[in-house]
């Protein structure tokens, strides 16, 4: 008794797409370096923007622990929360 494996068009496509994710299973590539994909360039731009934002924040005095020190020193801006558990008007 033989066990038949039927490859439908969909299952064949699925198998091929799975194979293409395995390193080394893609067809031969030319000798020159591949171009940088567009999505990588987009990610690089976002990373640059985030880096610039961090630099600007640090330059304007937003250092880690700024709020903490203010809370510990009692120099935090006046708030409506007291230690006695109620919201003051």
């Amino acid at each position, binding site marked *: 008794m033989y066990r038949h494996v039927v490859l439908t068009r969909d299952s064949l496509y699925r198998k091929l797409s799975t194979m293409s994710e395995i*390193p080394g299973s893609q067809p031969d590539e030319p000798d020159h370096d591949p171009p940088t994909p567009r999505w990588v360039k987009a990610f690089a731009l976002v990373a640059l923007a985030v880096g610039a934002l961090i630099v600007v924040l640090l330059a304007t005095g937003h250092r880690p622990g700024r709020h903490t020190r203010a809370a510990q020193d009692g120099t935090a801006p006046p*708030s409506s929360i007291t230690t006695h558990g109620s*919201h003051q008007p």
Partner: protein
Amino acid sequence: MTMTPRLRKLVLTGHVTASVGWLGAVVCFLALALAAFTSPDAQRLRAVTLAMDLTCRAVLVPLSLASLVTGLAQSLGTRWGLFRHYWIVVKLAMNVFATIILLIYSTSLAQLAGVAAQAPSANVDLGGLRSPSSVIHAGGALVLLFVAVTLSVYKPRGLTRYGARKRREEQRPTS
């Protein structure tokens, strides 16, 4: 060094568990941060700040380090490599960035928890605990981790120069 299939699956399971667990923990932390930021009640503010500190030290930091270590092992121990595919390089950069920010932020949060843990009789202004910083950090982490999960699932194509060179070397017939 290439891992055996059994070890590779074990490490992959650990990596997925740690990474997705980190994402879930960040969602919980964001809920706490929003509660702290919007709560007018001092008792609740103290409790939430202490819970955030505990969550950070006992859940977020260990999961982020576990995600980083298992991710490194997974890429170095398989043919995927660490610097061959752009999506792996991008994920590594995001993971390292998020872990560094988390470690820096955890020290700030520990100091805030110290303020929150002071005796209620102490004359302390708790306004500093209501900073939007926690919400911003947690929101940023959530976006970052969601992008990382998306990259892992879709695995967008793209070989780095190093990856292309390695592939050419592997495909070159040995004489």
